[in-house]
């Protein structure tokens, strides 16, 4: 009975994590300008499709196959015979796609769709699963060291963030985001209501993201995981608001939402261990660190449309270290060092590989959309569709003329 309940719960979590894609899609699309909203949606939609197949074919084997500690060598093109294994595979597919979809928001509004799909395949088929195998495969070398990441704070979110950073460095900022004189121009999203709705959906999905990571209904406290997840998200929003208040800035909804997501990311590494009080602390500080991180990113003139690096990267680092800083028992420097090792290795593995991959894509296919396509909007130039045809039609005369091709 317990096994059947666990199975049903896992299947539900697959659905919940899948639903997170909808949350990401809405949040990222709302954060982009109207002329790029369809393109962002498509990237979210398709990295689920591409990532699903690539991870099933190669990623799962690299992550969970027989390993000497570095990468799996079996279980490629898996054909699970029982429900438990199939659900586990499906659940991991959702995680892989989540890691890839973080990139889509960061690179929104100026990346070629075809190049993005290839990069998405590399993330889900190579970068994410190999690193994930180091931690979640019982034979993984970081797992053997004792590195702990309950539901993918580093494995999913940090890896996604570092891949985003690599992509952003190769792509460069959107046209006019930073002037030649160094002025920073805000490019507000076209629909903050969508952003908020996306965040709500993400939050709902996070209960499955963390809740589905329990090893069993009896040994792990599912209720505590869900409670901590919720508290982390709440505190993250408050932390971001506190940061804005300390900076004497207006209380931005977009930043508050990002704060809550940073809180959710932060809580992900230790949701099963933290006490509710610790969860609040971790989430709250996650929200603050997000605010600091976002400012630093801007100072380096990196144009991250959805603040993915600050939310998932900084939040991921903090959450992973927080496992050692808010221990169940006594504080252990050794645990902190191991957690820090995992954090550093996440960067050292994913960033250079993503950077090289992205550079190669850029050299052979071109990663950056042309400035003309940026002007016209990627909705039409990439997909020949408009998210909001009623008020965009007047600006696509030339696109109609040449069907968006240069």
């Amino acid at each position, binding site marked *: 009975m317990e096994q059947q309940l666990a199975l049903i719960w896992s299947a539900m979590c697959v659905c919940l994590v899948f639903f997170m894609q909808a949350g990401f899609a809405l949040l990222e699309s709302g954060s982009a300008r109207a002329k790029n909203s369809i393109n962002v949606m498509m990237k979210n939609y398709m990295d689920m499709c591409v990532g699903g197949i690539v991870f099933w074919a190669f990623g799962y084997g690299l992550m969970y196959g027989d390993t000497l500690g570095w990468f799996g060598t079996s279980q490629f093109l898996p054909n699970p015979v029982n429900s438990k294994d199939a659900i586990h595979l499906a659940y991991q597919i959702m995680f892989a796609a989540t890691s890839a979809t973080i990139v889509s928001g960061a690179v929104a509004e100026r990346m070629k769709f075809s190049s993005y799909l290839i990069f998405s395949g590399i993330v889900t088929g190579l970068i994410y699963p190999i690193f994930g195998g180091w931690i979640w495969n019982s034979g993984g070398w970081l797992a053997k060291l004792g590195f702990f990441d309950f539901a993918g704070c580093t494995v999913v979110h940090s890896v996604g963030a570092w891949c985003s950073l690599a992509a952003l460095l190769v792509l460069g900022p959107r*046209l*006019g985001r930073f*002037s030649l004189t160094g002025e920073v121009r805000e*490019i507000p999203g076209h629909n903050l209501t969508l952003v908020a709705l996306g965040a709500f959906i993400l939050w709902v999905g996070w209960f499955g993201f963390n809740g589905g990571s329990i090893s069993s209904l009896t040994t792990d406290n599912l209720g505590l995981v869900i409670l901590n997840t919720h508290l982390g998200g709440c505190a993250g929003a408050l932390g971001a608001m506190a940061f804005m208040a300390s900076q004497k800035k207006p209380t931005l909804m977009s930043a508050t939402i990002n704060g809550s997501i940073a809180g959710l990311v932060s809580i992900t590494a230790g949701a099963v261990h933290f006490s509710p009080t610790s969860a609040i602390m971790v989430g709250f500080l996650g929200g603050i660190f997000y605010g600091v991180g976002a400012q630093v990113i801007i100072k380096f003139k990196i144009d991250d449309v959805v603040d993915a690096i600050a939310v998932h990267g900084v939040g991921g680092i903090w959450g992973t270290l927080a496992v050692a800083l808010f221990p169940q028992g006594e504080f252990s420097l050794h645990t902190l060092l191991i957690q820090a090792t995992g954090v550093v290795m996440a960067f050292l593995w994913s960033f250079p590989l993503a950077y090289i991959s992205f550079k190669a894509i850029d050299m052979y296919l071109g990663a950056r959309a042309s*400035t*003309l396509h940026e*002007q016209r909007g990627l909705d039409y130039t990439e997909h020949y569709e408009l998210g909001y045809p009623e008020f965009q039609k007047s600006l696509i*005369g*030339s696109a109609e003329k040449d069907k968006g091709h240069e």
Partner: protein
Amino acid sequence: MNDDIRQRRRQAAWFCFEQHLTEEQLLEAIGILEQQFQLDGVGVLISYVSTICAQFNLGKEVGKALCVKFFEVMANREIKLPTDPLLLIEEKRFSAIRQQEQQAAAEKAKEAAPPPVEEIPAHSMIFMSLLKYLLKEVFTDEMELIKLLKLCCEQDKKIHKDIKAAIDNWQLNPQSFRWVLPFSESQLAEVTHLIYVCLCEVSGPVEADQIFHKAIAVCELRPEAKKFPPSRLL
């Protein structure tokens, strides 16, 4: 000397010199008679015939014969003479005056009339309207836009060399937009995109989009927009 005698002298002069001079020379000879030989007397007539013969190289013998003939004609009223040459002169003069007047009127009309209208293509007109609107609303002057356009051209190696050259030429005469005229629709669309990039630099991408929306709305009010929808430049 009464008018009748003056008329007869003119008729006699025409009659005598008719065989030796062309019509133009005859008219000139009559003119000389009227201006310089108005006094009565034989000496005056001889002097006149000598002057005309000398002027038109008729020779002395011819001159003597013409003098004799001239006196005979003047003396014999029976000889039928041609129409008073003065009438012919007057007619010629009026004709010349009319011709001059007509020429002057034609020249005056030519000056007053507007220069022939050059047929400017609709896409050029729309582009110029777009450009003028943006210059008025965004840029301090033409030179600011030209500098930014040149900067964009340097950064973008794909820009056609003709466009680069046109922008360089525009710098020499910023008030004139005639550099636009040789460009095709697709080339002007390329320049429009360059201007968009400049706008993004000056005002940021959000304002650039808004300004373009307004500029297109303004251009759509122009009559040329029926032939060439402004959005085709985008």
